[in-house]
Structures are given as structure tokens and as C-alpha cells.
């Protein structure tokens, strides 16, 4: 099924509506990827759902990414949304600073966001303002760190009996 919408058209329409809220527009592997200011993300997602032309109304996936070396933009929130009427996929990103990684919850728009946001909190420690029950979901409640952050290595970095340097790791 061919999409009726084009990447350029959708990008222009969102830019017209939100102006400076759209930070940048890219199209890696032909998928429209827009960086949105974190405080506008909730409004953008709500608007593209209700807009009669776009109708991007299915939340496919949301999750975090950690970029520890990117000062002031350490955490990325990535949202994949899909319009089934137009068969159009869009990826929205917002970057959050490490000192206060916080963004508005989507649970008031999509019930499915509830657990995905809990998982993102569990993995990265990103706070979702307004979330009804933001507690860990997959890991133990007593865990005192956020395991998907890059500073937590999968293997114990202090071990000396294993030297992987020669194997490209």
C-alpha cells in the first residue's frame, strides 16, 4: 500500500504548525525523523493524531537512548508513530539533559504508552511528568541504578583475567 503522504509534505505541515518547536528534520533510510523541542513533544503527538490530513494515530514504539558524551543532550526520547489511514511512519525525537531528564507523559493520549514509559524509566531513569504509576516494571524495585545507561557495562570492567582488547572490543 503506497502512502498518500510524503516526507517533505508532512515535515512542512508540522513545521507550519509548530514553527520553532521543530529543531531539525532528517530522513535516514527514507523515514521522516524530526527533532522536536522536549516541551512541545506532547502537543505535537496530540496534534498529528487529531489533524485531519495527517491522522498519525498509532503509537508503535517509544523508548530512550543514552548519549553520555553529548553535553546537555544526554538522553534522547524516540517515538515511532504510524498513520494507518495514510500508511505513513514518522519518528520523533526529543533530547533531554542529564541533570533533569524529564518529558511529558503520553498516557493521556495513548494507554499503550503506560508500560513503555515505565520501561524507559526503568532502563534510563527518564521521568515522565503526569504518569499515573511511574515505577520499575521489568527490574527489581530495589535496584538503585538505571541499567541501560552507557556507564553500566555488561561485564565487570574491573576484571583482569579477561583481556578483550585484541578482539576489537
Amino acid at each position: 500500500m503506497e502512502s498518500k503522504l510524503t516526507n517533505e509534505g508532512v515535515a512542512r505541515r508540522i513545521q507550519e504548525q509548530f514553527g520553532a518547536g521543530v529543531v531539525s528534520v532528517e530522513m535516514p533510510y527514507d523515514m521522516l525523523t524530526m527533532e522536536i523541542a522536549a516541551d512541545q513533544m506532547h502537543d505535537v503527538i496530540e496534534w498529528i493524531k487529531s489533524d485531519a490530513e495527517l491522522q498519525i494515530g498509532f503509537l508503535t514504539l517509544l523508548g530512550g537512548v543514552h548519549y553520555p558524551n553529548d553535553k546537555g543532550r544526554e538522553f534522547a526520547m524516540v517515538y515511532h508513530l504510524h498513520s494507518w489511514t495514510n500508511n505513513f511512519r514518522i519518528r520523533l525525537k526529543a533530547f533531554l539533559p542529564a541533570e533533569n531528564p524529564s518529558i511529558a507523559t503520553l498516557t493521556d493520549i495513548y494507554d499503550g504508552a503506560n508500560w513503555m514509559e515505565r520501561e524507559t524509566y526503568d532502563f534510563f531513569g527518564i521521568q515522565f511528568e503526569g504518569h499515573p504509576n511511574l515505577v520499575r516494571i521489568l527490574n527489581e524495585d530495589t535496584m538503585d541504578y538505571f541499567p541501560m545507561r552507557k556507564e553500566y557495562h555488561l561485564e565487570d570492567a574491573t576484571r583482569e583475567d579477561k583481556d578483550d582488547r585484541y578482539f576489537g572490543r
Partner: protein
Amino acid sequence: MSTFKEDSAYDMPPVGLSNETIDGDIATLNLGPTHPATHGIFQNILQVDGEKILSSEQTVGYIHRAFEKLAERRPYNQITPITDRLNYCSSPINNMGWHMTVEKLIGADIPKRVQYMRVIVMELARIADHLICNSVIGVDTGALTGFTYLFQEREKIYELYEEICGARLTTNVGRIGGFERDFSPEFHRKLEDFLRTFPKVFNEFNSLLARNRIFMDRTRGAGPISAERALNYGFVGPNLRAAGVDYDVRVMNPYSSYEDFDFIIPVGTDGDTYDRFMVRQEEIRQSLRIIEQAWKNMPEGSYKADIPEFYLPPKEEVYNNMEALIYHFKIVMGETPIPAGEVYHSVEGGNGELGFYLISDGGRSPYRLQFRRPCFIYYQAYPEMIIGQTISDAVLTMSSMNVIAGELDA
């Protein structure tokens, strides 16, 4: 994962129901975590009034294995075994989904024959997945016969996997770029045998349950969800189609040449257990049609793509050929250069849209790999679906949603 706290469970208000009770007594009941009826490790702390469910608090994460973290330390070809363990009732679909994601990232050109071979394997997996789900619905209504009968057929599908890759449950089938080897003559013989004998057995199973008065009385109206609510909860796959929405990744965003095949997407109307059962029954028939079409029209060509940087060369070449030795070394040591970029690719898994969001920074492992696990997303609707129902309906609802612990907990 939240641990059971007795106080909080008692404090929970019954959602959306009157405070009148049948016998003036509300009990707290642990459904799971380990109970044969939950078919996996799930805990639900139920508040029940007699047999009527007033509220449910879910606990998940019992078999969380940190796949997304593991993937950040593994070379791309070593991530395939992780995907096996997501929905382990249909591992090949997960494997193929992962291979296709990496192929999208590296821009590999996949021969038509490989695509058709993949379709056959994926549809076999879908049949195996749905067979388990539907026969287990039968078990939960008290009909064990269909389950034991159909497991013979699932065994045949597993023998077909064995012919392709040697493994049965966690298949790790195929590679980035294609398959290890072409389908063997034995595979073709067994597939022909399966396609000949399976429909008869399947129709017997269908006639056992589909119009069975007891089964229909038990399953109709059990755990219903409306299309609107299902969409809001992020439902996909057979569970969404049972509610009446014909979304299928195979049609919406065709991959692996699905556009070449003629098949229909069955939909239900009520989104209850019976509709979910019937949708899966019909999908099994459609999968058979797809397999027949792919098998009869299998194009000539190679069983692998021409991407020597990613596809492990045959062993005899490694010992006799300089290039093959270099490629072998680079692949095994994880030294192959991978383009930086980010891709999202999804396939229609046993439970619906199974997605892979992959960010590569050009290193030997993904910078970030996130799985869209359909189970995880739609299982959160479970309390809403069972509130006001009976405990036995709750058990049926869970098995008909095909909640797989491996996929849920990653």
C-alpha cells in the same frame, strides 16, 4: 517488577463497579506467577467478589534477561540467538525480522529465492504459533484432545525446521543475507507431506471446537475489547484483527515479497476470545495458502545474497582462498565495517507487529537496539478486559491473547 504488598492490594478500589457485593466479602487472589493456567510466569493479584473480578494488579518481569543491554555488546550475527528467545513459539519470524533489519541497514540486495524461502519458514512458524495458542484455548475450556492431537502436527513443523537449520525451538535459522544452505530434498519431501496431511487434521480440530456449543458458550463474550480501546492500547496482530481492524504488516508494509502472494486478512467483530480463536484458525489456512504459493513458484537462484563482508564463507573456501579467509576472520572477530545510521523494520510476528529499532554508530555492536514486543504492549490491557468477568474467563482471556513470557519480559 513490583513485589506483592498486601496492604496496597487491599486498598485498591474496585474499578468502575458498584460497591454492592454478592456475599459482602471481597477476597484477594493470586493468579500466578507460576500456575499451569497462566502458561508462563505472570502474576495477577486479583480482587474477587465470589467469582467476579473487581480489579487486577499485574506483575511482569520474572524472566527479564536484559536483551537490549546484551545486544549492545554483541556483533550483529550473534544477536540472532537473542531474538529466538523473544516469542519462542515462532522463533523463525523473529530471526528473519532481525536479519531483514540488518540487511536494511547495510543495504543488501536479497535474491528472490531467499525471500520466498523466508516466507515459507515464517508462515510455518506462524502456523506453529497459532496452533499452540488455539489448542491451549481448548485446554483451558476443558478440551485436552485437540491439544494433544495438534502437537503431532507441530512436531512435523519442528522437523521441517530441523531440516533447515538443525534446531527446533530456538532455531537461530538463517543468516544475515540468506540461509546456511538450500532447502534439502528431504525438506521438500517433508513439506509436501505436511501440506498434504495437515489440512485434514486441522479441519478435524476445527470441527471439534469451532461450532461446538460448549466451547462457544465458554468463549463468546469472554475478555472482549472494542476496536477503539484496542488501538489505544497498541494492539496489533490477531488480537486487534479479532476486534475488527484489518491491520497486518504483511499487507501494509510488505517485506520479503509478501506482495506476490494472494491471501486474505481475517477479521472478527467482538474482540472476544471466540473471535481471537477464529481469526487464528483462519490465519492458519491463509498461511497454508501462502506456503503453497511460495513453494510452487519458488524462483531459481541462490540461497544467499552476495554480501561477502557479512555472510560467512563456506569452510572449504576459508582454507583455500585468501579473500574467504579474510572475510571469515573479520566476521568472526566482529571487524566488519557497518554503516552508521538508524532503521526501524517490522514484521508480522505471531502476535502482530514485531519491530526492531536499530541505531548503529558504525561500531561492531548496535549502539542501541530496541524491540517492539507486541505482547508487552498489549498485555497492559488485560485488567480492563477481565474486570467484571469470572476467574475462568480471565484464564481464557490470557491464553487467547497469546501472551508469551519471553516476548513480554525480553
